[in-house]
């Protein structure tokens, strides 16, 4: 079977050309064959998926309509799923089975989506390559010796390889957009507060946001329709009336003002990436928008501010993993103190420990003002700088990543790995929505992505621009050549 979008699959299901059960079996079969190579899934929940598909078929038979009814989905393994292991790709939670569903999982369940399984990621979402998973190394379907990006590498690879028509991920500093860019899919990080975080295992509470990976922009709008919305279980969820994001999507962008911050195109940017952004500006103009260079001089400070804030929050969020209530506990410890230290030392990987240490340091007595508070003040400035620019522009256009996907093991030292997040972290710092849209392949056949950024809660405008670019540039979904057993 050819790869279909969510929208196309919906037509097939509602036109009774295909049952949800048949569809689910096709995907389960693909996973069985292909994922041995891609390694995007940590857990495949075949039995549950089949049951869910049968239930969806009943609902379809009863005449129920719904864009996600019977549509298979993959879920990043840091989103809690009742009765299905949720590991965060960590030894620490390798056996953790939540007794409850995250709000997004409930919503997808109500919409009739069929969960195929849980997807690989960097341990506790800390990383940019999915190499930090305790379990496996997910491959980039476009080039198997390259990383899929991270931390939602499993979600990106799974959608890219056609193992699910869409997937959910989470984005704390670029963890959706960067892997989407590396794997050539659409990847949306919504405004902070638009999608409930309830049930998302926290990395950095003030930055985390759940979003989606899809094959095209239209699907992205469909999925957002189903996951966005106020949730009384999340105090930071916005009381925002969610529109239908597919409405007016195709209206065009005539007259839209698009800013291109020059700092995002400075040193360290791969020429083909810079070229893609310049080309995108041309496409936008062709579609009737007005593009202009602008300036975000604080951009370079976003990265250190991000690492301080996210690590500080993480050091506290990950303190609950102490071997007492759930997850891994080191054996043969004679007293509590030893149990704590041994459990945490053996249960966490190196990168997680590094961030916990950094975050604890930034919050500790005598350093709080110099690091944590300073970073929160810089955050205020960065947010203001974006707000000022959005007085003049509807959308900002930047690269998603400075380079296309790198090879396994290529980035060994932490700071060089962190530098790869330079284009994405400021958006989380300011709580803005942003999307990666595929922008063709580089000379080595690796996907390039552009990032569009909008003011808070302007996802409609953001998706409209992304759609216009997608249509005008004509890249569409970047189909990996790799196709084993399909």
């Amino acid at each position, binding site marked *: 079977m050819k790869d279909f979008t969510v929208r196309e699959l919906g037509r097939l299901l509602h036109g009774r050309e295909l049952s949800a059960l048949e569809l689910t079996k096709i995907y389960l079969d693909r996973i069985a064959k292909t994922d041995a190579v891609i390694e995007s899934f940590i857990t495949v929940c075949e039995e549950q998926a089949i049951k869910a598909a049968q239930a969806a078929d009943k609902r379809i038979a009863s005449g129920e309509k719904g864009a996600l009814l019977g549509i298979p989905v993959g879920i990043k393994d840091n989103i809690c799923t009742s009765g299905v292991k949720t590991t965060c790709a960590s030894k620490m939670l390798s056996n953790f089975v939540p007794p409850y569903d995250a709000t997004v999982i409930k919503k997808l369940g109500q919409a009739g989506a069929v969960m195929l399984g849980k997807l690989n990621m960097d341990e506790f979402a800390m990383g940019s390559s999915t190499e930090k998973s305790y379990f496996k190394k997910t491959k980039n379907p476009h080039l198997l010796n390259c990383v899929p990006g991270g931390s939602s590498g499993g979600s990106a690879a799974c959608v890219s390889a056609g193992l699910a028509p869409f997937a959910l991920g989470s984005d704390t500093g670029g963890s959706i957009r960067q892997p989407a860019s590396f794997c050539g899919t659409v990847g949306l990080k919504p405004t902070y507060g638009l999608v409930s975080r309830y049930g998302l295992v926290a990395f950095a509470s003030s930055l985390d946001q759940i979003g989606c990976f899809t094959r095209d922009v239209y699907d992205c709008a469909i999925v957002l329709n189903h996951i966005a919305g106020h949730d009384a279980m999340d105090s930071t969820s916005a009381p925002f009336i969610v529109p239908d994001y597919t409405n007016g999507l195709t209206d065009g962008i005539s007259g839209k003002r698009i800013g291109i911050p020059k700092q995002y195109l400075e040193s360290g940017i791969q020429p083909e990436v810079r070229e893609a952004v310049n080309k995108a500006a041309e496409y936008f103009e062709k579609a009737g928008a007005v593009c202009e260079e602008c300036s975000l001089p604080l951009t370079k400070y976003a990265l250190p501010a991000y690492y301080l804030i996210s690590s500080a929050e993480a050091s506290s969020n990950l303190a609950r993993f102490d071997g*007492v209530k759930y997850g891994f506990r080191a054996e043969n410890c004679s007293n509590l103190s030893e149990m704590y230290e041994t459990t945490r030392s053996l249960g966490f990987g190196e990168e997680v420990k*590094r961030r916990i240490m950094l975050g604890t340091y930034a919050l500790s007595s005598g350093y709080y003002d110099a690091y944590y508070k300073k970073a929160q003040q810089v955050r205020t400035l960065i947010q203001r700088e974006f707000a000022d620019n959005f007085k003049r522009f509807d959308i900002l256009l930047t690269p998603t990543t400075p380079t296309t996907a790198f090879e396994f093991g290529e980035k060994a030292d932490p700071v060089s790995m962190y530098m790869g997040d330079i284009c994405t972290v400021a958006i989380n710092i300011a709580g803005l929505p942003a999307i990666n849209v595929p922008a063709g392949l580089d000379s080595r056949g690796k996907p390039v992505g552009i990032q569009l950024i909008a003011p808070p809660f302007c996802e409609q405008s953001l998706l409209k621009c992304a759609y216009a670019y997608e249509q005008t540039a004509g890249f569409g979904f970047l189909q990996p050549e790799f196709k084993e057993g399909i």
Partner: protein
Amino acid sequence: MRITTEQVRYVAALSKLKLNEKEQQRMIEDMASIIAFADQLNELETGEIKPTAQTLGLFNVFREDESAPSYEREVMLANAPEKDDGCYLVPKLIE
């Protein structure tokens, strides 16, 4: 900025992490380079700028004081590494 062995030991103790000699050495180097990187922020004058903890600016989000049934104890304890008598079990504390 230099990170000292004592600082790393202190932070590891606060974080309840045990680092061997090698890990400790590596951590000193990594933290030093990350902190040096973070020190860039000092280029910015932030004097009276209000820190932002939350980008949304929401306030007064409450629930009403209504109680609802709790979870079954067996469900809550299902993930416990060790349990007994309806309780989580931990090794003894040394006071």
